[in-house]
């Protein structure tokens, strides 16, 4: 990259901190991931970009001039103070994806979060050959969120964006394509789905095998796991707390749980639960 290039100072910054960055992100290499990137987007088209693959950083800062790729557009699904996770497409169907594919930065996961005046993105990726990594994402999304909190805490100096020399800029920010939040899922359709899929019995898997709970028992169990007492549940469901106690006794004997805490443990670990 040449000093006269527009994002030269941002590139230099990444070059300077890459050693420190690589130290901080050590944990991800144990998970068969190879590339990590951190973005902080501002509405004026400026962004902070850190990545442990310097060749890719150089390519991006020189050639990527907008955020209109399939991955970039997902920024509009970033929710305020909530993580939104996106598994990358399996085929490289636009320029940015093709470039990532050619750099062997593939099978990735992006996690977005919106704050009051910026959107953050944490990107994780591996190689083209590691094609079953999405199972890791599916089972360990909580771990990844832990990592993100850990990263933002440990790298707070690195991701501080006050010094504008650290920032790169999109020369082509499009027609206000930033921060137009739209829900990624159609909530009305999801509601329709929920209404259409009621069951009479709810199975939960216990160490002793599958146990069926009735609708009422499941309701009780759900409220118990929210920390409610029999009396409170009674009030909520408008039935006597004696009856609730009976339900709880039944569930305990069905699942062979000794006490409430154990019951909750079984309920939460059980993979077929739904509440």
């Amino acid at each position, binding site marked *: 990259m040449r000093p006269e290039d527009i994002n030269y100072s941002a590139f230099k910054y990444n070059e300077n901190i890459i050693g420190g960055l690589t130290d901080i992100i*050590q*944990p991800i290499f*144990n*998970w068969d991931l190879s590339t990590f990137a951190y973005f902080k987007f501002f509405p004026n088209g400026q962004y902070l970009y850190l990545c442990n693959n310097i060749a890719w950083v150089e390519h991006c800062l020189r050639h990527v001039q907008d955020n209109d790729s399939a991955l970039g557009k997902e920024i509009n699904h970033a929710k305020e103070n909530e993580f939104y*996770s*996106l*598994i*990358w*497409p*399996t085929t490289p169907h636009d320029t940015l994806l093709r470039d990532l594919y050619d750099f062997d930065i593939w*099978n990735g996961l992006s996690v977005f979060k919106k704050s009051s005046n910026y959107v953050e993105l944490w990107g994780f990726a591996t190689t083209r050959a590691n*094609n*079953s990594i*999405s*199972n*890791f*994402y*599916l*089972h*360990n*999304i909580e*771990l990844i969120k*832990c*990592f993100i*909190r*850990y990263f*933002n*805490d440990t790298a707070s100096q690195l991701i501080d964006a006050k010094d504008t020399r650290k920032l790169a800029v999109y020369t082509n920010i499009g027609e206000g394509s930033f921060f137009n939040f739209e829900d*990624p*899922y159609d909530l009305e*359709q*999801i509601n*329709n*789905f*929920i209404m*259409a*899929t*009621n*069951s*009479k*019995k709810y*199975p939960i*898997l216990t*160490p002793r*095998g599958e146990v069926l709970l009735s609708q009422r028992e499941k309701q009780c169990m759900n409220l118990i*796991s*929210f*920390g*409610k*007492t029999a009396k409170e549940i009674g009030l909520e469901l408008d039935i006597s707390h004696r009856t609730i106690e009976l339900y709880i006794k039944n569930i305990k004997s069905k699942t062979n749980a000794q006490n409430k*805490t154990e019951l*909750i*443990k*079984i*309920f*939460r*670990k059980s*993979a*077929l639960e*739904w509440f």
Partner: protein
Amino acid sequence: MNKSNAKAYHHVITLQHDLNHIFAPLEYLKINVFSYIKILQNGTYVLLSNDSAWQKQHYMHVHNQGKFFETCNKLSSENQLKYFMWPSVPVDDLLLSLHRHDIWNGVSFGVRQKDGIERFCFASTNNAWQITSFYLNNIDLLKRFLVFFREKSSAALKNFDHQYFGMFRDGVDIMQIEEEYFTHVVHDDAITIPKYSISSSMGGVSLSPRETECLYYISQGYLMREIAITLGISVSTIEYYLNNIKNKTGCNTHLELLNLTKLNS
């Protein structure tokens, strides 16, 4: 063409009419294809699906499980519902065939039973790449559907005559059990959780790393003595941390804490 598989296919399509209304709610989620397969120890199977073209293809031309679904079988367990995201590229003949039928971006659930293995697959089209993120963020909805499907289809499956089972020509061994990294939940001590703020009835509260860890394990349903073992500290220390959290958050009981963790997922 295998005669017994043809017979099996002709039988399952007679059930299609009764099953279609069970599959219908999936349209709300843009999940085009759902299929259910039960494989018995002797290598025979029954396959139900809302995609009859695929059902036909499977009974007529699929001779084995393929490497990917074999792995799913091995990893299926009796007391846990496991799930498996399909790989990003078709790595075996069966996946290749699904891909050619424009059935892709799928996730499968597997559970082992005394007499065999049950597997449930959700999938969309080759282009619908966003659906995998939908699975990631909404896995509970898929589980809900499984509960619903099992209840509604139980009558049809209970009376299902063994003479109408299909057969994998190349055989299939579902008795092997394996534990693998593939679907494991990883614990990593290298990540120390930073000070973490949660919202409670007392307003925003900041927790120390240890307190956060304790609260996290509580939310996962761990018992105090299990947390003590996991974190390598004594039960009374855990009690001390939990008391601190209770003081900070204004919770009185253990169960209120659980409630709090749910709100602060």
